[in-house]
């Protein structure tokens, strides 16, 4: 865009902070805004351009990019997401986590869209941003503290009960590979081990506070688009459940497609008595004291709980997501119904991603069950399924890299490499990232999870194809959206590559604009989709942007993520396949008992997926023509030099 052209929706500046020499500078967001949409799009462009291929995650040469979504700070539905991206220590490639966040909004009100953090501080510091005042401040007094304690100390010190921070806990400080960054005391910039990269830079927290505003190009058109989008939600059939119980409302639909992770994926459904004992709806109704939501959200899926009885009496925390139930409670077969909230809260305090806890602990418990490891290795702990106290002790040991926890802190893939003895079969991961997602029984979910550029994960392409949208009007709508005959049929291979390609683009646009997936068709076919996002983006920025433009920009971003991974890792087609357990074992029980993944058909689905992307079927590498069409000719040249052009 022209040098002096006014920029709307964006705050306008990128803040660059070098922790090694203390240098702080700014540059205009306009350098990237139009070509990369915002937040994660700008992050991958900067990381690709600025990181040398030989840089490793914990070196000062690695960079962390915090990005507030383009629509964050406005009233757009679900516009509360910010991202933190870096070269990640779990996969060795593209790492990006998003969180509902007040920090992102405050950052924009302070005048910045993006923070680029470079180098490494000589001692613990935190980054203070308040309008024009940017300071790298001493954080020795915060080092060692949990994320909850850190927020309390910061709020007390600044006498500001509404101060917002994104901080790391002991797990990040101790370079636990799956450490996350916690926004205030609840939501996490999860997976990928972003928190440990912050730890490697001695950066304890990012605090932002702004008194300025965000302007949109056409306020009248923008507000009309926002209100029209919000009206759509009244037709969403999943809305009531989400508003009452959050994502935990989806437990039954997971059960229906054998989407449960029980005893580290040994089974894909739950024993009836356990299902009854842990029903999260009962627990939420019993202990909820308040709703909890984030700026712009038209859903409102959060709940604040005060547990008043049982082993965790006194705990005050936000209700967890479904992921915590599946990766910590059912995976480890714990019966105490409040355990999911306790374990989730404890992980948040420690700054440990819940999958980086559930993954290695589930693997360890199965190894213990099978006699692969014993108390001599586990520091005397008996790793019995369902033993809640042992799980909490292991979360602590992982966070401090203490004893056996030091092995688990590497994530299940590397831990299995250390232990050997065929234990790797029980380490369920994709590209080194611990998996909570069962990849049997729901093929669109599986394909999106296994091909994800950030390692295993369901938020960058997976489609919840088991949702009840395959009948009546919802089905017709889904057919018109995805262009496939039978969209919501979890066990059909046909059409899934197309659906995942659609969702990959939608998820990326969401992430760039800062829109929560739960406000879009990711969650419910009646919620907002590309046309609404294009209208919101156009009205906000003043740049005429059609649905196809958004998809093109998302494809460009995806291809650059792919190229970034090819530069930094040896990923290929083999890494886009499900785990051996998901391939080899039929579903043991439940409604889909006996169903088994057909590897030949899965490979055909993967071929179709690569064809849709213009990637080579054999290697998975992008073709020159594909990259050139996306304006990435120089990236094609880069890949050709290292023999990775498809």
């Amino acid at each position, binding site marked *: 865009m022209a040098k002096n052209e006014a920029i709307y929706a964006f705050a306008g500046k990128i803040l660059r902070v070098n922790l090694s020499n203390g240098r702080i500078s700014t540059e205009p967001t306009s350098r990237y805004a139009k070509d990369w949409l915002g937040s994660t799009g700008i992050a991958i462009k900067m990381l690709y351009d600025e990181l040398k291929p030989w840089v490793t995650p914990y070196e000062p040469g690695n960079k962390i990019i915090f990005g507030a979504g383009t629509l964050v*700070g*406005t*009233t757009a539905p679900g516009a509360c997401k910010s991202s933190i991206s870096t070269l990640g220590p779990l996969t060795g490639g593209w790492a990006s986590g998003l969180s509902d966040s*007040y920090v992102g909004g405050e950052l924009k*009100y302070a005048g910045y869209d993006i923070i680029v953090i470079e180098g490494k501080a000589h001692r613990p510091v935190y980054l203070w941003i308040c309008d024009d005042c940017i300071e790298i401040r001493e954080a020795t007094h915060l080092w060692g503290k949990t994320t909850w304690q850190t927020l309390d100390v910061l709020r007390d010190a600044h006498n500001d*009960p*509404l101060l917002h921070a994104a901080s790391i806990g002991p797990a990040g400080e101790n370079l636990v590979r799956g450490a996350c960054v916690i926004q205030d005391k609840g939501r996490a910039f999860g997976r990928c081990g972003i928190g440990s990269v912050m730890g490697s830079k001695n950066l304890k927290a990012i605090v932002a506070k702004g*008194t*300025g*505003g*965000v*302007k*949109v190009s056409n*306020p009248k058109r923008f*507000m009309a688009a926002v*209100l029209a989008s*919000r009206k759509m939600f009244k037709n969403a059939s999943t809305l009531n459940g989400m*508003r009452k119980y959050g994502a935990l409302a989806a437990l039954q639909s997971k059960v229906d497609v054998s989407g449960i992770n029980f005893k580290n994926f040994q089974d894909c459904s739950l024993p009836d008595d356990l299902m009854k004992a842990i029903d999260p709806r009962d627990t939420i109704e019993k202990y909820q*004291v*308040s*709703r*909890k*939501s*984030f*700026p*712009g*959200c*038209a859903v*409102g899926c*959060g709940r*604040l*709980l*005060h547990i008043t009885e049982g082993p965790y009496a006194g705990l*005050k925390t936000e209700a967890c997501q479904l992921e915590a139930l599946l990766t910590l409670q059912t995976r480890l077969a714990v019966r105490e119904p409040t355990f999911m909230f306790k374990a989730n809260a404890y992980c948040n305090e420690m700054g440990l991603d819940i999958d980086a806890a559930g993954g290695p602990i589930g693997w360890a418990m199965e190894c213990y069950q099978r006699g692969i490891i014993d108390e001599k290795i586990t520091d005397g702990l008996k790793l019995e399924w369902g033993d809640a106290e042992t799980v909490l002790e292991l979360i602590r040991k992982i966070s401090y890299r203490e004893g056996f926890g030091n092995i688990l802190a590497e994530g299940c893939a590397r831990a299995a490499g250390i232990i050997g003895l065929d234990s790797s079969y029980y380490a369920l991961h994709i590209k080194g990232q611990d998996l909570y997602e069962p990849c049997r029984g729901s093929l669109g979910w599986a394909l999106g999870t296994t091909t994800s550029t950030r390692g295993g994960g369901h938020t960058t392409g997976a489609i919840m194809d088991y949702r009840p949208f395959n009948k009546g009007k919802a089905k017709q709508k889904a057919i018109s959206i995805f262009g496939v005959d039978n969209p919501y049929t979890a066990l059909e291979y046909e059409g899934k590559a197309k659906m995942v390609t659609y969702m990959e683009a939608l998820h990326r646009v969401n992430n760039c604009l800062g829109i929560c997936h739960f406000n879009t068709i990711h969650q419910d076919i009646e919620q907002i989709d590309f046309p609404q996002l294009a209208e919101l983006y156009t009205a906000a920025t003043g740049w005429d942007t059609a649905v196809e433009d958004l998809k093109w920009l998302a494809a460009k971003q995806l291809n650059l993520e792919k190229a970034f991974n090819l530069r930094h890792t040896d990923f290929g087609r083999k890494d886009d396949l499900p785990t051996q357990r998901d391939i080899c074992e039929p579903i043991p029980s439940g409604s889909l008992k006996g169903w088994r993944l057909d590897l030949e058909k899965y490979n055909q689905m993967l071929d179709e997926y690569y064809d849709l992307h213009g990637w080579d079927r054999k290697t998975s590498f992008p073709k020159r023509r594909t990259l050139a069409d996306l304006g990435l000719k120089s990236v094609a040249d880069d890949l050709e030099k290292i023999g990775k052009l498809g």
Partner: protein
Amino acid sequence: MIFKMASCGGCRTCEIACSFKHTGEFKPTVSSIKILDKEDGLGFRVCLIESSIEKSNACDGCVNLDEPMCLQYCEKREDLEKILQDFLKSPNQK
């Protein structure tokens, strides 16, 4: 003036919308409505500004609009509407 609102989820979209009404941009510091954490536990309170102080504008109930901005974006519209009516009826507002 501070009100209890048990159903508030603390999303603060009302603050962002309110600031738009005053300035034409999204700038919560100038809002007439502020969402506060409860002092004695989990949950939120609603603060409506009676007279303009520092950067915050006094709440006028959006008299020039068909529907006040904050209500247009509140998931618990009826509860907030009641608070707004109580506020506008309070002696300080007359």
